[in-house]
């Protein structure tokens, strides 16, 4: 019985993998060559359950041209990640909400609104890259004061503060992950 469940699951997986490699069963959307960031967000909103909304004062970023040389085809399964990568490139972060995420300029995002996440989740790259997050990590061994690490974190636009021997990092998930990786190498 177990063997048959295992073999049928394996067969299903192989079939799924085969279909994916042939590009079957994968809906895709086309981003026009002259698209702006706002157009990509609109496409993402039309293809997903939650909604990305532009925070007041960040709407000007929506008009930012992507300068694509030609149309870009994005599988729907990758649309969320691609939208986040482009928002991050445009200097924006996404503040997660209840079914409605807000797009805010990275410089204007308040640490109080960051989603608290475990650093293991960030190191596993399990979150969309522009998600605005806060995490803690232990201060690397011989570093006397967190101020010594601040310059390093600021390089990636990550805000760093220290509580006893713990560091608090706030910023876009992708950037915070880079800081965590650098700190673990110290």
């Amino acid at each position, binding site marked *: 019985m177990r063997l048959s469940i295992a073999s049928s699951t394996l067969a299903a997986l192989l079939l799924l993998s085969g279909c994916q490699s042939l590009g079957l069963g994968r809906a895709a959307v086309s981003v026009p060559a002259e698209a702006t960031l706002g157009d990509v967000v609109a496409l993402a909103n039309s293809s997903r359950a939650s909604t990305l909304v532009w925070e007041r004062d960040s709407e000007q970023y929506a008009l930012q041209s*992507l300068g694509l*040389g030609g149309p870009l085809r994005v599988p729907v399964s*990758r649309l969320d990640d691609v939208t986040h*990568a482009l928002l991050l490139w445009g200097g924006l972060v996404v503040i997660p909400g209840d079914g409605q995420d807000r797009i805010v300029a990275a410089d204007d995002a308040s640490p109080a609104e960051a989603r608290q996440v475990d650093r293991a989740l960030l190191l596993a790259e399990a979150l969309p890259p522009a998600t605005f997050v806060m995490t803690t990590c232990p201060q690397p061994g011989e570093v006397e004061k967190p101020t*010594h690490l601040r310059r390093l974190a600021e390089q990636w*636009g990550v805000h760093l503060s220290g509580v006893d021997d713990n560091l608090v990092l706030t910023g876009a998930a992708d950037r915070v992950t880079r800081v965590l*990786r*650098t700190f673990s190498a110290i």
Partner: protein
Amino acid sequence: MKFSIACLAVAILVTESAQAGDILDFPIPDSPIVIPAQSESGGASIADLIALYSEATGQHCVMDSATQGYANSTPVSSQAGGSMSIAPERVQVTFETLLVANDFVLTPLTADEPRLFSITSLNTARRNTVSSLGIFLPADRVDDAAAHPAILFTTAIDLPGIDVRNLASSIRHMFPDQNISQLLAVGSTSSVAMWGFGPMVKRTRDLLMTVKATNDAENKVLRSQRDADEASRRAQSSSASQARAKGGAQAVRLAGA
């Protein structure tokens, strides 16, 4: 049954993560790309070069409008006279060399399809924030950076036994523009963090490792000298005490006689 489902879930996760590509693993075109020659009526611009590269590698470029302006107006500065044919395996490094020679930075944005990269002109306001584009590279992968002259990297190097604060301040002049290159001593640890273009990061790592090797060799010589001095002091003190003991025994014999 539960166990099989758990195994299956783990297997799917492993398969999914194994599919995630390396961000530095750029596609290699099928055939050489040819950059047309400059002529009096003009020639290939950086924007043309980006279009050629994007088409040949199946990647997509994003640029802000200020960078687009510079890309359109900057001629590819390398080829006076004839056109330039680039072999497929040399396309990536040549493309990056031409970009950086004209003050443009390349940043891969996605590791999976669709592959996106951004180009940023260092002549725009983005120069001030360009270091945020740096990709973290662990110390054991710094050699990979050498092949990417237009990508900014950050790495941390551990140099036990070296006064890294002193070292960082003594070679600070090698990093005149802190937007695109920097070496930082990390507090009172023995680590330095640095960022810069790929070949610069590798060269600086090599320099730091040479300094460390020299320092280790000097310390070894000093240690063996100290050990030799200590051994000779111990030998002298032992022979002196033997002589004293001998002298004392003679005195006792004389006194007895």
